[in-house]
């Protein structure tokens, strides 16, 4: 398992710099009349990372970390308010409508909820055929059927012809997620954002879907941004893991490095509470106090300091620099 190296000058497919997604928080009518500053939800607050062809990078964090928003911002399903997204040498944020449409053929997304992310009134066939129709990619019905069947087979749904006329509600959770994957695959993308693709599936089905994703990477060289809150899954499938907290990345490294020798206190706490299937006591785990604060009120200095078991004066005043601590292992903390 490992990133597939393609011949060519640039192995790097995506480079994100300083990505920001800020929303104006909704305030009541009266308060918007009274106070002058509208509060800002800084969901993604300056994120840098890159992704190579055929690589699986996991963006991990709790809810409120901004990981899903980051994934969607790269695809411009949510409009970023700052920063750069360079895809294959071009800046995605400057694409006009038609260029954006073409980009969407190269960069796809799989959603978390296999029950809600499929139109209940579309058959299996029309769900997978829709991307082809919308982008005018097929000249005949036969070609369309061929491509749809191929995508369904690639997604592990055997006997594609049989399920063409089925509806999503007639499929199981795992099959539905495969259908969603098929509809992303049919456009032959180079990059897929997988937003918690297995969190709503039963445990025994998860492995199958994850295996499928890795197989597709091995066979077709698709790279993934795998978004999850489950670090053990991240460790299993990713090449590299990036830990996010309150809109910023606090640590990045290879999967083994981040899980086995975490640098940042937040990562260390998260790793210590990773569930394992054996009898174990909760003592000896680093249980942080409280919960992730609202992105409207980001603490000054190091944003993790209110919950950090090792916080010091400096952490409150100064925001730590994001730097390479050991080869290919980056972190942002004063004490690493």
């Amino acid at each position, binding site marked *: 398992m490992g990133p597939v190296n393609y011949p060519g000058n640039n192995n790097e497919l995506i480079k994100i710099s300083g990505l920001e997604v800020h929303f104006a928080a909704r305030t009541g009518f009266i308060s918007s009349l009274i106070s002058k500053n509208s509060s800002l939800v800084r969901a993604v607050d300056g994120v840098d990372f890159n992704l190579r062809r055929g690589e699986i990078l996991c963006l991990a964090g709790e809810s409120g970390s901004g990981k899903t928003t980051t994934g969607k911002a790269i*695809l411009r*399903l949510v409009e970023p308010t700052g920063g750069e997204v360079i895809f294959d040498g071009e800046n995605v944020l400057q694409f006009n409508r038609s260029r954006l*449409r073409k980009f*969407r*053929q190269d960069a*796809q*997304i799989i*959603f*978390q*909820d296999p029950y*809600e*992310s*499929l*139109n*209940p*009134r*579309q*058959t299996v*066939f029309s769900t997978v055929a*829709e*991307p082809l129709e*919308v*982008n005018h990619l097929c000249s005949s*019905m036969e070609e*369309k*059927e*061929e491509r749809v*069947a191929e995508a369904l087979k690639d997604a592990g749904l055997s006997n*594609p*012809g049989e399920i*063409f*006329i089925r509806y999503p509600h007639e499929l199981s959770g795992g099959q539905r997620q495969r259908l*969603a994957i098929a*509809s*992303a695959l049919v*456009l032959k993308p180079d990059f897929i954002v997988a937003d918690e693709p297995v969190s709503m599936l039963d445990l025994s089905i998860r492995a199958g879907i994850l295996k499928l994703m890795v197989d597709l990477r091995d066979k077709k060289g698709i790279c993934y941004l795998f978004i999850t809150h489950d670090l053990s899954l991240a460790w299993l499938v990713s090449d590299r893991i990036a830990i996010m907290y309150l809109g910023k990345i606090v640590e990045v490294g290879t999967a083994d490095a981040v899980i086995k020798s975490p640098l940042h206190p937040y990562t260390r706490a998260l790793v210590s509470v990773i569930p394992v299937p054996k009898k174990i006591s909760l003592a000896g785990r680093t249980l942080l106090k409280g919960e992730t604060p609202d992105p409207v009120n980001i603490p000054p200095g190091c944003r993790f300091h209110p919950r950090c078991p090792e916080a010091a004066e400096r952490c409150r005043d100064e925001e730590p620099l994001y730097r390479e601590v050991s080869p290919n292992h980056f972190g942002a903390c004063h004490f690493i």
Partner: protein
Amino acid sequence: MNLPAYNKSALVVWKKNLKSFWLIYSQNIMGLLGLGILTFFALMAIFGPYLVSITTLTIDGVTQVMHPPTSNYWLGTDDLGKDVFAGVIIGSRVSLLVGLAATAISMTIGTSIGIISGFYGKFTDTLLMRFTDVFLVIPWLPLMLVMAALLGPSLGNIIFVIGITSWAGTARIIRSQTLSIKERPYVERARAIGSGDGHIMIYHILPNVFPLIFANTVLVAAIAILSETTLSFLGMGDPTQVTWGMMLHFAFSMGAVSFGAWWWLLPPGICVVLVVLSFTFIGYALDEVLNPKLRRRDQ
């Protein structure tokens, strides 16, 4: 690879949907009753006029006027000697046609405005909704009367008037549903594969509001038929057309009440009531079929 031709599959899908729909619908007694009554009147409207001799509607100076039912004239005659039974049969066609045509206009306007308004939101939404509010707020009957009076009593005008005064409620309901569907993940997915606004509205929003549209259409049709009857009864209708409303209009204005000519007064009125009732029953049944939460648990 041996694949089934999709064109054939589309038909199969259609038949499949119809079958499962009927399976549940047929369990609902109200729905079946409503459907039965409506079918009866539909058959009456389609085939009736061919079976009834038109000559019984001409004034021949021979037939007795205002005569109670006889073996020749099953529902008696009106003040000019015309056959009431024939009138009811022929009137059914026009009454139903006007109702359905007006409904079609109303639903088209209401659905389009509802979906566009809900989908785009912001300024478009505000603009369209304020426009809708105008039609919601002005009382329906006076508005209809004024427009009918201004435009003149022709069938086309009646259809037009009913159509453009009854779409506002539909627009609001559809907009509400659109707002909710717009946020579903599958709409976001549609964007992610490159769909434009129009495509999303037609292929994602519309099919999912369709159950609501269907249920709403049925009720609007009931209102449309009632509106035509009302307009005609109040004298705004087309006097050259035979409709149930016109029959009621003439019955009242020609003194059927004081004469006691129940055979002229009751039949058209009862027909209107039955048709409206059938639509209402069907509407209730559709609600239950299309909203799974209303069904009983063991269904």
